[in-house]
């Protein structure tokens, strides 16, 4: 079978000592990032991109993917022991995880999180292996109009789920798109919004914006209330392993979490945070012990932790098969791959099978490594929290500057980065989400290209987007995802109108 050849090829790439080492470094750093409160996977990957510059693309993505799912794992540890989620996708884990820890059951909670993550990560990798080539094959038929519609849909789905207010999230998206238009327009050679500055001709460097908006704004947010921060930390008492009763309750939750996470958070593009909330909702409505949820039920840890990892794996399908990021973190990975001169997409499976299958194989290996790293060594990870916050802040500043400087050797980039740090912090205070900005910035260029190529094909008619079935479906999807918060209002509106009519 073809798959077997590919798996063999993949492992032959992934099992070289160097790549094994990188996978280990990736999951290790990822776990550290996940454990540290304040640095999420997005910030972590953005900060670590510069180390990948010297690496072949193959090894670079193995490292980045390791950081990505490592961070997903690590996030649960602080949720359970400190009640401080390492990132948004482990917010729900806090609810029951911290309750379990308070009852002296931190061990089983950590074990359930790790095992759930392992099962979900492995499942997502298997699905990537099975579905990936098929999706890529299908996507080969896509022309520019389909791609445009796909990116448009991806952008709206992610935006519609970001932050508290749809208007603000959409505004963030348009800001990202606007940033992407800065610099020389590659199709006509005309410069746009450069104000005569030579360094601006290349556009704003992706890393400058990403690190500014995420890492430095994080620094500023930490500095703002540093002197008030107090953390309550629980220690691990008793065994780490699950009892028979725990297993009986956790396994169904693992399965439900994995499936819902993979399909909702991964394939549908809703993201890991949403996936974990959906999974918690499922446990709350269907679980046998639903009345215990919120008071330290193991399902409340097992389900969401499986779900966020399954979603993270699912998001890789979009990135690899379609070349379109389905989340903020994968957007940063796409940006990094583009910087390395690699364009992910359906052709990747055909042209660079060693890249794709090497990554897939390394994901299996990385998941096993994480299980080994996390369960016995959980005590060590918790010690990371002893690093004083002010040193952490200084190191984030240091790595931000180091990373951005090595891209172009430009001091102007450094100052711009600080500027974006300030902007990022202000946006946070205003409750405007930053993830859509990055996603739109990465997709903006590609969207504009696809749009213009489409119009060349159709000789200037926008009808091309609605006459081709796939792009029409995608655009309808986008419309649904953006309007769905208002359906309730619309319904009420119509009911009022029709209600009045019948009354009259």
């Amino acid at each position, binding site marked *: 079978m073809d798959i077997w050849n590919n798996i063999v090829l993949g492992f032959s790439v992934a099992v070289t000592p160097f790549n094994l080492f990188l996978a280990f470094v990736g999951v290790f750093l990822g776990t550290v990032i996940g454990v540290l409160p304040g640095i999420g996977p997005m910030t972590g990957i953005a900060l670590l991109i510069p180390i990948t510059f010297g690496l072949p693309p193959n090894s670079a993505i193995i490292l980045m993917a390791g950081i990505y799912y490592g961070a997903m794992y690590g996030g649960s540890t602080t949720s359970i022991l400190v009640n401080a989620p390492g990132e948004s996708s482990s917010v729900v884990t806090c609810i029951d995880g911290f309750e379990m820890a308070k009852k002296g059951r931190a061990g089983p909670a950590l074990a359930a999180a790790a095992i759930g993550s392992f099962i979900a990560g492995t499942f997502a990798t298997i699905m990537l292996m099975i579905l990936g080539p098929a999706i890529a094959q299908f996507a080969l038929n896509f022309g520019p109009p389909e791609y445009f519609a796909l990116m448009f849909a991806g952008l709206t789905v992610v935006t519609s789920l970001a932050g508290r207010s749809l208007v603000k999230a959409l505004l963030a998206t348009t800001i990202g798109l606007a940033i992407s238009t800065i610099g020389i327009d590659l199709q006509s050679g*005309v*410069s746009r919004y450069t104000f005569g500055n030579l360094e601006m001709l290349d556009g704003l460097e992706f890393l400058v914006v990403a690190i500014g908006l995420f890492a430095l704004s994080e620094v500023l947010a930490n500095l703002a209330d540093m002197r008030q921060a107090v953390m309550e930390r629980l220690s691990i008492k008793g065994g780490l392993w699950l009892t028979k009763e725990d297993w009986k309750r956790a396994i169904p939750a693992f399965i439900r979490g994995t499936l819902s996470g993979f399909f909702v958070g991964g394939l549908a593009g809703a993201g890991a945070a949403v996936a974990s909330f959906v999974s918690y909702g499922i446990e709350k409505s269907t679980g046998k012990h639903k009345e215990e949820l919120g008071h330290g039920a193991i399902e409340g840890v097992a389900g969401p932790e499986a779900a966020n990892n399954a979603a993270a794996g699912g998001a890789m399908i979009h990135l690899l098969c379609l070349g379109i990021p389905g989340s903020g973190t994968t957007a940063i990975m796409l940006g990094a791959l583009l910087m390395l001169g690699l364009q992910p997409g359906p052709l990747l499976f055909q042209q660079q099978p060693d890249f794709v299958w090497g990554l897939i194989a390394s994901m299996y290996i990385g998941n096993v490594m994480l299980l080994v790293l996390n369960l016995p060594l959980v005590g060590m990870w918790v010690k990371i929290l002893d690093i004083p916050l002010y040193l952490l802040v200084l190191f984030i500043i240091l790595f931000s500057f180091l990373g951005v400087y090595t891209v172009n050797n430009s001091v102007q980039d450094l100052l711009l980065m600080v500027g974006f740090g300030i902007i990022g912090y202000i946006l946070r205070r205003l409750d405007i989400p930053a993830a859509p900005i990055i996603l739109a910035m990465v997709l903006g260029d590609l969207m504009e290209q696809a749009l213009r190529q489409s119009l060349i094909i159709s000789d200037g008619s926008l009808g091309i987007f609605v006459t081709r079935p796939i792009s029409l479906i995608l655009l309808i999807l986008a419309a649904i995802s953006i309007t769905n918060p208002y359906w309730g209002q619309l319904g009420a509106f119509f009911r009022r109108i029709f209600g009045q009519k019948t009354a009259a």
Partner: protein
Amino acid sequence: MKAQRIASLTFTALAIAYLAGAFFIKEPPLRQQLGPDAFPKTIGVMMLVLSLLYVRIEFQRQPVKEDDERAAIIGAEEKLSDYVDYKTIGIMLALMLGYGLAFESLGYPLATFLMFMAGIYVLDLKHWKRDLIIAIIASFGIYFLFRYALRVNLPIGVLKFLFR
């Protein structure tokens, strides 16, 4: 909600400026179906409409209840606490700007060392001996690591004489 109001107006101004800028984009020598100004104009209009909506929300209605419900459903990032230590933020921002400006002229090792020590001075001086060693590793240690292990030459600036 004063900050939100100012922000909404700022975004409107920004959108207008961006949209106006789109009209100054030069025509390319070769006419295309969609010129280089079409995409920016579309974005500019969208941005303007959205920022006007933002203005409307902030100036007309009371803070909306449904927004918080939305946050509960999808798990939006937690809100920042209202307490802000502007003094620390201001000093650290100035420090970062200085670090950026000194990055090439003073060179990476010296600039980093100074930034670190200044940061420690501002934030927490209790363990300064331990932190001094950490600062030396972070500045000179990383410089040598990059120079000899990763073969990346970071700027050395005024310490050039060390490598003569």
